[in-house]
C-alpha cells in the first residue's frame, strides 16, 4: 500500500482524473473531498459491508414463512407480478 503524508488543503491525483483533497483535519477526523468522473463509483467502505451483511442475513430456506404486510396493495399493482415481460414503473435513471 502506498502511504503518503498530506497536509490540510493538499491533494492526491489518481489516474489524472480522480482528485482526492484533504479538506480539513479535526482531531481524529479527516475530511476528504473527492472529485471523480461520473463513471467512477465512490462509496464509504461501510456501505459495501452493510449490504453484504444484509444479504447474508436475508438468505433463507425457500420454505420459510413470508411476512404479512399491513395494507398490502392489490397484487396487480406489483411489477414483480409481470416479471421480465412487461414494463415496470419507471425508476429514475438520472444518468441515462
Amino acid at each position, binding site marked *: 500500500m502506498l502511504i503518503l503524508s498530506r497536509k490540510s488543503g493538499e491533494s492526491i491525483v489518481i489516474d489524472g482524473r480522480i482528485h482526492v483533497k484533504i479538506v480539513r483535519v479535526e482531531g481524529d477526523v479527516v475530511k476528504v473531498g473527492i472529485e471523480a468522473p461520473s*463513471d467512477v463509483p465512490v462509496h464509504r467502505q461501510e*456501505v459495501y459491508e452493510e449490504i453484504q451483511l444484509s444479504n447474508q442475513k436475508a438468505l433463507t430456506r425457500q420454505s420459510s414463512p413470508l411476512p404479512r404486510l399491513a395494507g398490502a396493495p392489490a397484487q396487480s399493482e406489483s411489477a*414483480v407480478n409481470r416479471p421480465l415481460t412487461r414494463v415496470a414503473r419507471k425508476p429514475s435513471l438520472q*444518468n441515462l
Partner: protein
Amino acid sequence: MKCAETIETEIETPAALPANQVRLPMGLLGFEQIKDYVLLVNPAEAPFAWLQVEANVSLAFIVIDPFLVLPGYQPDIPQPDVAFIGLKEPNDALLLNIVTVHGPNRATVNLKGPIVINRLTHVGKQVILANASEYSVQHPLPVTENAV
C-alpha cells in the same frame, strides 16, 4: 451520423435467458460466486417473490417491488451500472429489493442496494445507489401479526 448508425447496429442484444431465469454476473455482495437465479412469482404470495439460487433450490432470497414499499423511491443508478446491465431506457429495468425476515413481527427491505435486472436480457446486478445515503439497508416493512 453514419458513424452513429454503424455503432447502433454493431451492438447486439444478447439472447434473453429462458423464462424467469436471471443472471447476475457479479453475484450479490457477499455471494459473488452465485450468479444464476430463478425468479419465482406466486400471486398468492404477492407482493413478495423469491429469487432462488438455481444450483441449490433450497436457498433463496425474498424480494419485493420497492415502489410498493416506498412510492417515492428514487433510485439513482450509477452510469457504469446502467452500462453494465445494458439498460437503454428506464422501462427496461426491473427492480427487486431484498427482504430480511427478522422474526414473525419484523421484516426489513434493503433500499440502498437494489437488484436491477434488464427485462430484455435477464441480466442484472446488485447496485449501490449513487444516493444510497438517502436510504436504509433495513427499511422496516409494515408487518402485521401473523394471523395463523
